């Protein structure tokens, strides 16, 4: 926690006029998971680190973990160990506002728990890997290296399960 605080202070201490080459994001994501007739909505936290290697073109890696499980029909579900490796395509900013698209590969586990007739729990956990598509907006705060980010992310795993997420958070660049 101290390290994180120190990192944030370091980022904030860098003048806003310097060239932004690297960035870190922390977002809260609320994921929708749907299979059979069940629909779950979970909450995860995600940390992203990335950098630009050309103007408007970057690469990033993000990791996430569960905050809150989703519930439906007596089952609970959570998304665990979310990891995404993406390429970022970002528009030039207009008054600090830019749009971006992320294309990448994501890997995560879905853990589902149900209670049987004896009161015991049956938990199944399945790893998924597939394509990840994100569209979003970033608004740079005035005279700051901080930005607000929000987006919609879709995971495609070629299985009859729908997994998407709305994310909102803050980015710091240096």
């Amino acid at each position, binding site marked *: 926690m101290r390290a994180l605080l120190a990192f944030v202070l370091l980022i904030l201490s860098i003048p806003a006029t310097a060239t932004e080459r690297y960035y870190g994001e922390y977002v809260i994501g609320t994921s929708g998971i749907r299979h059979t007739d069940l629909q779950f909505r979970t909450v995860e936290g995600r940390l992203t680190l990335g950098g630009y290697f050309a103007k408007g073109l970057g690469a990033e890696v993000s990791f996430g973990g569960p905050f809150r499980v989703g519930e439906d029909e007596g089952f609970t579900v959570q998304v665990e160990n979310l990891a995404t490796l993406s390429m970022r395509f970002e528009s030039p900013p207009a008054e600090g506002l830019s749009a971006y698209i992320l294309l990448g590969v994501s890997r995560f586990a879905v853990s589902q728990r*149900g209670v049987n007739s004896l009161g015991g729990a049956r938990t*199944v956990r*399945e790893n998924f890997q597939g*394509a990840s598509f994100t569209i979003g907006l970033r608004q740079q705060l005035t005279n700051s290296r901080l930005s607000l980010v929000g987006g919609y992310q879709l995971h495609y795993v070629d299985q009859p*399960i729908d997994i998407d997420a709305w994310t909102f958070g803050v980015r710091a660049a240096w």
Partner: protein
Amino acid sequence: MVANIMVKTNAFFKAAITLLVALSLASCDGDVRPLVEAVEANDIDLATIEIQPPASSLMPLFVSPGERLQFSILGRTFEGQSVTVSPNNRRWTSSNSNIASVSDNGLVVAHSNGTVSISARVAGAVSQQFNFEVSDALLQGIERIDGNNGGDVLNSCLPQNFTAIGNYGGSDLRALTGVVWSVNTASQMMGAEIFTSNTTPTGGISLVGRQPTGGNVGDVVLNATFPADDEIGQAAFSFERRFQVSDTLTDLTVAPERVDVEVGRTTRLVASATYSNQANPVTVTNGAEWLVVMGVNTVTVGTVGNSPGVVSGVTGGTATVRAVCGNEFDDAIVISANNSGSLSFNRNGTILLELSDRTFSGLRLSTGDTFSSSPDRDVTNEAQWSSSNTNVVTVDTDGSERGTLTLLSEGTATISAEFFDTVITIDVQVNN
């Protein structure tokens, strides 16, 4: 120069995006089935699963290369009750798919010699490992013919399934496929027949023995021959099993006793037999002999091996169809008629009757838009009759008096007649 750089940059972007999308899609992994199965498992309260080979399999199980086996899954609830679990679209696993592979639907295909184990996983529950051996050993002889619960007495007209068991050496016994079955001439004269169209899943046969009509019981000899195959050096083998046809049949019943059939369509009769050595009647439709004993031009009936008990309407009229087994027989009345979809009475308007007449037998019914008394259209004796007011008038519903009205008191009633799901009504007024 600038344009050249932009073209190169655009090409780079396109290539990068294409590569990334292709890599992302190609890297898809994961299986949603455990999550879906967990829902199914909760619905049926599934606790454990056990996989099973085909019911006819002998243990220990040996199979030949190329052979296919459909495995099933038996589930048990937390209370120990059996539940049906579909074998389809599950996670089946073979310990060595070079020896035998298994599909997502539990279909095992043997490939080469060796021992292999199969297992399945449903909603996180893992079955036992089912071991069996794939072997291309040659048949060394026919060990026995299984069936009839091991008994040597055949109940007359009651078909039984039989399977030949081959010996491939040591404990390697297998249910044989490709066996040629026969009964000897004396057995055929006894009325014994093999249902070639009713083979068992293991390649066996269904045999029926019959006590000859008016005759005594006798023996039936069933022969199984495994043909030679010179290409693989397989010798031929034969095996006989002898049965006695019993005289335990005490009653034969055909149901329904009376049935309607449209011309050009079929209906099915069922024969049930009561045996002195069995607690309850059993269906012998496939084993009984069927014939038309009256009205042979009106209907036809299928017999052994050819849709037994299935009656086809040929022309309008009444027929008697009989099921026979040894000295026992029973009849069903079959009404065959052209169903034009409409009915007509021979009277129009309200029928006015005097109570003092007590009965009225002048009401008749035929198929068609207008009444016809021709035998193939007059269905007075075949229709189902009813009265809306049985305090005033009743109507005979059985026998040759069908449709005859009995007048009971002054008043009105509606008489209904039904034939092949078509209903027609007529009002009756009884005056004193």
